């Protein structure tokens, strides 16, 4: 009897010490888990590509669930339609809130953009937290790419919303002080500048759909022009890009319809007729081709500016809507071509378009160069500025020599060169004329603009989730 007790207790003891922790919790071999995924450089590269996928957003007409992130595909609502360049065709739905300056904090498109870009920031931080698995050289390149994307996202958000939460690492659900505390704009800009400087050091100019050195330099120049405190450095950055191999396309049409042209510095890539990688904003800008009846339609004011100052860019910027001749559409990103303008269709299905979205192009850099030399003043006649300005105008067929450039001339030239490319709203704010120009535009069209409309409302969903930590922008 006693012997069996000894044997039994010995066996029991043996069993107790033989099971290690891992024995009961093996790492799954047939399924991927987030915590253990990034273990090779190839896997880290998928995370890098994932960042650009986040910026690309989802085609709402292919993947129709409304909770998906549409990212840059809905950016035009928040920028062009809030400026005096475009509006909805028939004042429909939530989109009409943007043109009439009656945006509510419950606006779904504002919420979409906010969560899309914080998701992009999360994807960038994922890359940054797993750099250890890459070799030293590749780690430096990936770090530069991730910091460019993170800075790009924060830059868009801070310009639209004002003070925003600053996310420099992967945030856990419990860290409500990072998620819901709005950090001052100045601190955000310092963070953006430091990320872009790392990006410039680590990138080269080998890619257009991924971050490049010139893209980081151009973005940093734009940041300096926005904060207004380092015009000389902005000028140096522009001159550095100007010394490279980018050049203006001779034909304005080629900028948008020739995918490998030498003018584009950074664009978001799309693939035509593809469920996962196409875009639908091109279709939304047409008459009832997308889900809306037509958005991003050209305002009378924008048409007048283009007619007066556009040169040969005008027919390639807007056209009359063939189905509704009193309305005017954007020409720059047509998915189904235009025979009279000799533009081919870019995809078989216009709702699944492949037109890449241009974020930064060389003409913008030349005009930023002029802006940097102007340095917040009223006029300039420095020959370097006249040279850059003239290059853009010459391409547009406006070859008469300019002897001095005023702030208004530069603003107008930016409007007609970069029309409908999501720059107008930011240009008005940067030049300090947003309130004047937009209140005049608003009273002429019966909208209700007030000074607080220059910032978007923080999405109500975020405010609700924050349990009182997030405060709303004034006026909402």
């Amino acid at each position, binding site marked *: 009897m006693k012997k069996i007790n000894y044997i039994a207790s010995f066996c029991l003891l043996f069993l107790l010490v033989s099971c290690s922790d891992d024995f009961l919790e093996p790492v799954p071999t047939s399924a991927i888990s987030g915590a253990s995924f990034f273990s090779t450089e190839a896997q880290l590269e998928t995370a890098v590509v994932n960042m650009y996928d986040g910026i690309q957003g989802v085609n709402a007409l292919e993947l129709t669930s409304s909770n998906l992130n549409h990212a840059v595909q809905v950016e035009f609502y928040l920028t062009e339609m809030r400026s005096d360049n475009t509006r909805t065709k028939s004042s429909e739905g939530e989109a009409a809130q943007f043109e009439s300056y009656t945006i509510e904090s419950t606006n779904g498109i504002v919420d979409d953009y906010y969560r899309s870009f914080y998701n992009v920031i999360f994807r960038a931080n994922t890359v940054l937290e797993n750099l250890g698995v890459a070799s030293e050289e590749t780690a430096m390149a990936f770090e530069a790419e991730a910091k460019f994307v993170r800075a790009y996202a924060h830059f868009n958000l801070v310009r639209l919303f004002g003070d925003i939460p600053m996310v420099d690492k992967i945030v856990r659900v419990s860290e409500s002080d990072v998620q819901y505390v709005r950090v001052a704009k100045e601190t955000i800009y310092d963070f953006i500048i430091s990320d872009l400087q790392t990006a410039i050091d680590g990138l080269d100019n080998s890619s257009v759909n991924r971050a490049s050195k010139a893209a980081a330099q151009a973005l940093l120049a734009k940041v300096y022009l926005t904060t207004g405190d380092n*015009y*000389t450095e902005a*000028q*140096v950055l522009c*001159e550095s890009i100007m010394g490279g191999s980018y050049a203006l396309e001779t034909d304005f049409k080629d900028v948008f319809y020739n995918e490998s042209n030498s003018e584009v510095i950074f664009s978001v890539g799309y693939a035509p007729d593809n469920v996962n990688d196409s875009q639908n904003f091109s279709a939304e800008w047409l008459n009832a081709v997308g889900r809306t009846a037509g958005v991003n339609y050209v305002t009378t004011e924008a048409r007048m500016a283009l007619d007066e100052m556009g040169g040969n860019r005008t027919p390639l910027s807007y056209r009359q809507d063939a189905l509704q001749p009193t309305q005017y559409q954007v020409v720059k990103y047509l998915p189904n071509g235009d025979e009279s303008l000799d533009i081919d269709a870019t995809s078989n299905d216009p709702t699944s378009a492949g037109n890449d979205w241009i974020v930064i192009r060389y003409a913008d850099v030349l005009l930023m160069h002029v802006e*940097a*030399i102007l*340095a917040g*003043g*009223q006029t*300039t006649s*420095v*020959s*370097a*500025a006249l040279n850059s300005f003239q290059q853009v105008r010459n391409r547009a067929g406006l070859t008469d020599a300019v002897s001095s450039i005023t*702030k208004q001339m530069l603003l107008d030239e930016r409007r007609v060169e970069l029309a409908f490319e999501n720059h107008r709203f930011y240009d008005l704010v940067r030049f*300090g004329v947003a*309130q*004047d120009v937009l*209140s005049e535009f608003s009273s002429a069209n019966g909208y209700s603009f*007030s*000074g*607080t409309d*220059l910032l978007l409302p923080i999405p109500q969903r975020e405010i609700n989730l924050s349990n009182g930590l997030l405060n*709303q922008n*004034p*006026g909402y």
Partner: protein
Amino acid sequence: MKNSIYNIKVLACLFVFGLLTYSCSDFEKFELPESGSIEDATPPSANFSFTQGELDAFLTYSFSNESASATMFAWTFSDGGSSTETDPKYTFPSVGTYTVSLTATDALGAESTYSEDIDVVEPEEPEAIVPVILESSFEDNALPDGTGDGRDSWRISGRTIFGITSGGSNFHTGNQGAKFEVAPEDRLGYQEVAITPNTDYKLIGYYKFKSSPDGGMITLGIVGGSHSDPDDAEAAIFASVQGGDLSSGDETNGYHKLELAFNSGANDIVGIWIDSNDMTEVRVDDISIELVE
């Protein structure tokens, strides 16, 4: 027996009754609050920002109302003006300091006031900087603190400073000039000055060669940006002019004048570079940078 059972029943009823009464005692939470009994958690808070008009409209300020939780606004300006618009534009009578006050009221009558002083000045085009060149004439004791041998501001670590020439007609003005001898001497003069970007300037200097040997050349250059290494500085020269006339010049004491027009470009700081090709001894004097109108 019946009595005790009855007593127990009564006690039980009383007990249950007491329990029920006790548990239902807080009926207050089902009462509706009276009007005005709960404080407004978001009283109005007034705030505004402003931008000055441009060019001739510099007396007109546009105000942007940033108040929260308010429905009516009353603006008062210290020169007597007032407005009830949300985002008014106001023209001040003249330059000076004014106080602008915004009172924001909500529908309950709660008020909040915010004031700010505005200093209305006519914006001036900032004057371009005329660079200050120390020891421009290479004289002794010419530094602001009264010291200096005429060359101290022109030194750069890594290269030998030029010599000093004096006496007779060796200088252009003053008592001394800079002297650059022939090889194996290899002298350099370098000084950095603050400058306004994107402005047209003219660098002026005077030189005189000794009569022999032949082949001498003096270079005056402008270096972009600030550099501590002379090789980096030399690589960053973006404008330069050379003088090689060994004959007697038209200026005082037979000197020649050298001029170099340049645009400062994207630089807040430029360096003045004076170098000889070390083939003929040359004197240099009176370096200056002027604005080109």
